[in-house]
């Protein structure tokens, strides 16, 4: 993020409005009053009348795709998610603008009556149904736009679930728009169908990401649960890997490996680990937090947390620390959960 530039003052609203109005006037004048401008206007209008519907649908699909992907917490970093959110909003604005152009040109050409832009399923002719779908989708899109604009208000006075349930109407809107695009008006040429198919694929994969979000939530506790170096997870999950013998005397392994199990494969050489006190920055979600920000909580508890931490640390150094697979909801209790797991495992082993 660029640093704050405080030297410039924000232009006033009036000056911005004046500038916008004069630009629009200038463009209008150029289009209407110069011969070249008139020719360009005709071309632009023809293009808009012919293609902006496709642009609308592609922008809409992009909006939905990016919106779905922006919820991901596993792959995307925080920064990328912020970027995805702004891309989502930008694509939505493009879609709404293209929709306005699409409706405007269609009305100007007389393909539909002004009433049909507002009330669905009233248009005369064979395309009545497909045209109506477009109207419904357009109205929903405007509604989506409104929910996007007033979103913050739902966080304050309103209820978030209300917002979510309105915004989720985007899901039914999109197929309506797709059917409208494929079937209303002229028959769609193959490349448009291909475009739409790509959009369908993209949205479906986005949907998959979105549905995986509540399931696959990253373990959010501190470094104990999720070391920053990507460990080969679930390598040694059930098998009690024999402790890799230290360099010094080839001490007999304390416990003979159970016969029934396959012989323990010699684990790969452990990655060079930083010394314990030079702790790397903790990974929380996906951001590094300065470990010196908060000293460890030393409040006395009923549970011997310090001892547990020490044991975990020792185990991790020995390479037998089991990492909890990230698919489980072990958000705040990962530390305890691993300890529990290990404890019961040991008891079972000893009972055997």
């Amino acid at each position, binding site marked *: 993020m660029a640093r704050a530039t405080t030297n410039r003052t924000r232009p006033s609203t009036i000056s911005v409005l004046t500038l916008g109005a004069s630009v629009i006037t200038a463009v209008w004048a150029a289009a209407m009053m110069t011969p070249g401008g008139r020719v360009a206007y005709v071309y632009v209008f023809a293009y808009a009348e012919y293609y902006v519907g496709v642009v609308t649908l592609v922008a809409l699909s992009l909006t939905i795709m990016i919106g779905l992907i922006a919820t991901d917490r596993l792959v995307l970093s925080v920064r990328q*998610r912020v970027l995805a959110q702004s891309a989502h909003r930008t694509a939505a604005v493009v879609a709404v603008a293209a929709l306005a152009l699409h409706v405007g040109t269609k009305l100007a050409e007389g393909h539909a009556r002004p009433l049909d832009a507002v009330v669905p399923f009233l248009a005369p002719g064979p395309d009545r149904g497909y045209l109506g779908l477009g109207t419904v989708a357009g109205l929903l899109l405007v509604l989506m736009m409104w929910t996007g604009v007033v979103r913050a208000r739902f966080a304050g006075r309103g209820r978030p679930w209300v917002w979510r349930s309105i915004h989720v109407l985007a899901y039914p809107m999109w197929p309506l728009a797709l059917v409208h695009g494929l079937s209303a008006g002229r028959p769609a040429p193959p490349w448009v169908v291909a475009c739409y198919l790509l959009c369908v694929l993209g949205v479906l994969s986005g949907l998959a990401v979105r549905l995986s979000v509540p399931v696959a939530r990253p373990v959010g506790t501190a470094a104990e649960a999720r070391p920053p170096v990507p460990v080969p997870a679930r390598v040694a999950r059930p098998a009690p890997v024999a402790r890799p013998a230290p360099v010094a005397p080839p001490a007999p392994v304390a416990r003979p490996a159970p016969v029934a199990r396959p012989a323990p494969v010699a684990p790969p050489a452990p990655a060079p680990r930083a010394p314990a006190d030079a702790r790397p920055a903790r990974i929380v979600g996906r951001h590094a937090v300065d470990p010196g920000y*908060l000293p460890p909580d030393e409040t006395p508890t009923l549970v011997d947390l310090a001892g547990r931490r020490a044991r975990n640390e020792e185990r991790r150094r020995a390479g037998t620390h089991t990492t909890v697979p990230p698919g489980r909801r072990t958000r705040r209790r990962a530390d305890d959960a691993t300890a529990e797991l290990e404890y019961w495992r040991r008891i079972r082993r000893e009972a055997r």
Partner: protein
Amino acid sequence: MSPRRAPAAARPVRPVEADPVPPVLTVGVPRLTAGLDEYGRLDLDAHRRVHGGLPALTAGELIALAEAIDLRGRGGAGFPFAGKARAVLDSCRRNSAPPVIVVNATEGEPASWKDKALLTRAPHLILDGAALAAVALRAKEIVVGIADDGVGARSIAAALAERRMPVPARVVTVPHRFISGESGALVRGINGEAHIPPGRKVRASDRGVLGLPTLLSNAETVAQLAIAVRLGPWEYAAAGLPGEPGTVLLTVGGSAVTPAVVECPSGTPLAGVLAMCGADTGPGILVGGYHGKWIRADAAATANLSRRGIAEAGGTFGAGMILPIGPATCPLGEVARVVEYLAGESAGQCGPCRLGLPALARSVTLVAAGGGAIDAVRAAAATVRGRGACGHPDGTARFALSALEVFQRDAEAHASGEGCGKPVRGILPLPFRTDRGARTLVVDWTRCDGHGLCSAVAPEIIRLDPNGFPAVPQTPLPPWLENGARRAVNVCPALALRLS
């Protein structure tokens, strides 16, 4: 994505109704406050009747007078006035340009009222001093810089309207911010630029308003000059300590039952002034404002009110704010609120200050909440010190560190988890209050899921704690931080943030 923080925010938080200026009390013979008890506000007539006419001085006489009474800047820095005037004269001679006289009456400190008391009740003293300097230095114009908090603007305008100044004089209003009073910031504000401290230090005496050599003085300083020229150096030195003659103007607030602007001869016992205002000292006294230092109650009991006396007690005299904390409030909680406020007052142009002061505020808040270590505060303070265009980071770090030193026992009680058991009453005043339209960032903890997007878009307001959840300031936000806060509200995927 660059967070553009406009100096004039979209929705400025103005006091709906300006705070009343506290009453004026006097110890000994009144000088700056002479006639206020009789007339209330001195208009030109009353001013002439009380103070008499104004003689004109040459530059040499002015400097000799300022030297004889050892007049120092009363805005906090305490720079000798004579030295400043000499530097301006030198600069004028070098550049063969006339100087500009700037009176700094912005008084950005929320706890300070002395300049505002002068502005509202004795504006002609300020104008007298400015006129005196303008005639002596043959200035091109006089500029009086005031804050836009609605206090004193009408009074100074009325005073200017009813008298003739030797050179053109104008009043310039700058936004009421903590850093607006910094000399470089004021000069930039007068020149029509953003009223924030410049990145490269330029002495106002070399290049100030309109690029001319500028004599920039605090309002009380020029008012003292107007007193001294009438009394003469010997009579002036009749009050106060031999080393620091004259009177000082204080603002006594904090736990004082009757907050007041007090004029007293320098060297008056601090305890006497506190008793006069009905202030119970409590564990410590803040002297010199929010960039000042705390002094212990036992040191305060024997301290006298002079730069030297306060320095011996371990404080800095600064702009003469005396804020006893009182026994009824939690000192660390108060300090945490003020550090949070100061962090929000960062102009945002120097990175170590923009992000370092919020970190410092969080570490102090953690100490007050019982979870933090004092060493973390030290580390955070060390990160910011000396790394800004102005003294704001240094002053804030000094304030926080001296508080932890003076309230060590409280800090230990908080660190052990028990706390001091006292509520935070808001004894130390802050300008942004929710009842005046300032808004607070609130987290709905049941919704927050630690996504962390908020801290990515508004790092100067929100940081994540080690568990990945946002730590937001508890105090109301200044208006210039509201845009960032709104961005954070907008990106929150869980709709857990709101501005209320």
